[in-house]
């Protein structure tokens, strides 16, 4: 990594951090005598966040049959582990939701991220994996490293986007050339700094890796989901090209070509509703 890339990583602390309420809720969840009631009472101090959690819980993401109208009930329905993920997802989106960007709108960024999450989750379901929401969160966070690039280096990223638009190179190559780092590297660093579980750091850091390696299934599913979301053109995190498919990741997922159609259909059907749950009033 070039020195400018290192300097950029040092500046991650200039970004908004995760809200204190996330850490409080996480503590409450991890306490041995912790209860969902305790978590609920922590969350209820932040009305905006708890309203958002309810909306997300009632979105197409979970497909709950009955409408959930109270936080404790939502927490019971979706389970402790999932509560952590949903708080994390809503906190991260909320932190960045209202910050204006340049040629890529924040909304477009989250549309792409959510579509990738939804596709990744659909892949996990297709493969009969338990904990499909882990895959959703891995997909949701996979390009998070682009946000520090846009926010800390707006001018350079503006030039990179312009060069990418003129077909000079793919965006990640331009990131390396112009900033000495990439969104994958920055994303992994940011999530590590936030003390987010390693599985998400790996998905953010290695979803474009093409080499042979023993990737986690979440990383490989995110790699494929990212390609699906880009092909469908649901939002964008900046790139206008569909990333290159890695044989290793594809084999790692164990997907068949026939699995793609249902995954794509589910992604198209679900994403819009999940986007409005996360982003709209």
């Amino acid at each position, binding site marked *: 990594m070039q020195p400018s890339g290192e300097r950029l990583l040092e500046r991650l602390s200039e970004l908004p951090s995760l809200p204190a309420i996330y850490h409080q809720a996480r503590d409450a969840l991890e306490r041995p005598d912790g209860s969902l009631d305790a978590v609920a009472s922590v969350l209820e101090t932040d009305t905006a966040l708890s309203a958002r959690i309810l909306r997300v819980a009632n979105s197409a993401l979970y497909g709950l049959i009955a409408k959930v109208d109270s936080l404790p009930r939502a927490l019971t329905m979706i389970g402790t582990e999932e509560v952590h993920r949903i708080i994390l997802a809503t906190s991260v989106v909320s932190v960045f939701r209202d910050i204006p960007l340049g040629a890529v*709108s924040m909304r477009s960024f989250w549309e792409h991220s959510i579509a990738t999450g939804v596709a990744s989750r659909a892949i996990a379901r297709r493969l009969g994996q338990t904990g499909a929401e882990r895959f959703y969160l891995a997909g949701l966070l996979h390009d998070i490293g682009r946000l520090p690039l846009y926010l800390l280096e707006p001018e350079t990223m503006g030039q990179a986007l312009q060069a990418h638009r*003129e*077909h000079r190179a793919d965006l990640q190559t331009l990131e390396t050339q112009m900033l000495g780092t990439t969104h994958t590297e920055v994303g992994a660093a940011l999530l590590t700094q936030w003390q987010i579980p390693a599985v998400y750091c790996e998905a953010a850091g290695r979803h474009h890796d093409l080499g042979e390696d023993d990737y986690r299934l979440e990383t490989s599913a995110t790699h494929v989901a990212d390609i699906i979301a880009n092909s469908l053109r*649901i939002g964008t995190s900046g790139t206008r090209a569909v990333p290159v498919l890695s044989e290793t990741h594809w084999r790692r997922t164990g997907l068949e070509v026939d699995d793609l159609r249902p995954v794509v259909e589910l992604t198209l059907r679900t994403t819009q509703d999940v986007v409005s749950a996360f982003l709209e009033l």
Partner: protein
Amino acid sequence: MPDPLLYPVTETPTAAPTATPYHQPLALDVLREAIGRFDSCTTAPETLRELQSTSRLLIPQARCGVMLRQRDGCLELACERADPTEPAAKALSTDAEQGIESGWVGLAIKQGLYRTDRQGEVWLFIKLASPRFVHGVAFWIASSIPESLHQALGALADLAALRLDRLAEPGASVLAPQPNQDEQRFAANGFPAAAADPLTGLAPRAQFLEALKQAFQGDFIGHSVGVMLLDIDGFHRVNRELGCVVGDQVLRSLAHRLETTLRSPYVLQALGSVSSDLCLARTGADELGVAIGHLRDPDRLLQAAAELQQHLAEGFYQGAHRLYLSVSIGLAAARPSGEEVGAETLLRRADAALKRAKSLGRNRAILYDPAWGESVSPHLRTESLLHEALQRSLFRLHFQPLFRIADMQLAGAEVLLRLSTSDGTPVPPSSFIPVAESTGQIAEISAWVLRRLCQQIRAWDHQGPSSLPFALNLSAIELSQEDLAQRLHKILSQEGIAPSRVHLEVTETAIARNEAQARDNISALRTAGFEVWLDDFGTGYSSLKLVKDLPFSGIKIDREFVMDLTAQTSTAVIAESIIAMASNLDFQVVAEGIEEPEQLEFLRARHCEIGQGFHLGRPVCASDFERLYLSKTQPQPRPEQDPTPT
């Protein structure tokens, strides 16, 4: 992934392990020949023809084709033949499709070269790219292609790509095949090649007009042709205040955002079109246009426009400035089979709709309605601060209590809007409300206010149910909007608050703006269950007539009459008669602006029902209102210690 010249001409050909020495002198001769020939090519098709003919010197029996990357990123076969229906050209186009579908072309782009055997033939794909641009892929199909020729063919492709690069300057647009070739495949998305707008990279106005004309010539059964014109509100101010460099960057960012959104599956689905039916162009300095072929339902244009606006609402971060820009959008559609409408007329209609959107307060999309006459009025300014305030919740609600004068029981509160800039400096309503009204942002602001109020009511009801009403002011702009009652009612039902909890105050001046619409709105609001009060009574012109004709719930006597109550006899007489008239007509009366105990006593003696003013209680924030007036003890008026108005 670095993308250098893949086959440097200078490299010794013997480096290839399987090289057959026989080929090398020929290959070098061909390359030398090609260098000279490419140099004299002046158009892209000529360059491609040269690539094909020089490569035939190496593999004479091969079928050779070139796929060029188009404006939308798709690859299209560049035909060298005049007649695309000719069998050889058809075969080539089938080959190209197969190359794309089987993924070989993709692999060639990824790796630079891809070779495969299929049904006794060798297929060889080579990327046509320079370090700055991937132009496409060239391919050769023959019963045999010696591997020793790979390098030579690759070098030819690199030479051709470099030539294409040079031909593309300075416009740097994608080179489309010549217009008179293969109409059916190329005309559909490559409108005749014209240099893209250098700033935004979008199509220029001429191409937009051409696309629109072509859309009218298409096949329209059950489809319409649509136009969107998008004008950035108050863009001249960006250029003036932040300079043209920032202005240009913002324009480019905005164009790119719109393009991404426009081509998302949800917008395309709404329009019923595919990406190649759309042509997004820069049609003016700060105006963009979209020509839409195969539009399913003209009403869906509004949905697409709303989606576009959503991607702009969050604002732009540009050179340390946060900018909140909005666009006004004019929409028009025509079904050419049914109406005598052409591209020109459609464009004029979209323009009329755009002007109307501007005059109705900007930041909105309007679909042309044939019922319009020739109206359209002035144009107004937009204000970034209000935009930002909406985006970042800088607004706050304050509450001023109302009391029943007879027993000093809390009777409700008037809700007032407060705004501070992000550094905490308060902005007085008298300075931002007129701007919000003139830009039309008032509608968005009042929707926010109502929603916030509902949430506040819900929070207070949670602590102790009550039926306390809260009064909101309606602006002239809103009162002249068609769907006012529906809109407000929708917000209340979403928030689960009964309309009876919200009193709406309207002024005579506001009614006068569009009296017919205001009357309809007031009746509709009353039917929906809202109470509507006539505010500032006595200061307008047509008071008595209004009071007689409209179903008001009550009136508020303007502070002007209360202020001089005890000092001027004439004022006292007017106030007294207003109160008497109101009670005869069975209206409730609120006296505003009570600042002294004497005024209160006067009003009490005349049986004025409700009072409001600094003497009884100032506007305070929600938590103070709750502490002072909603706590369990009997609420009491809190006369202000310091009566200086803020």
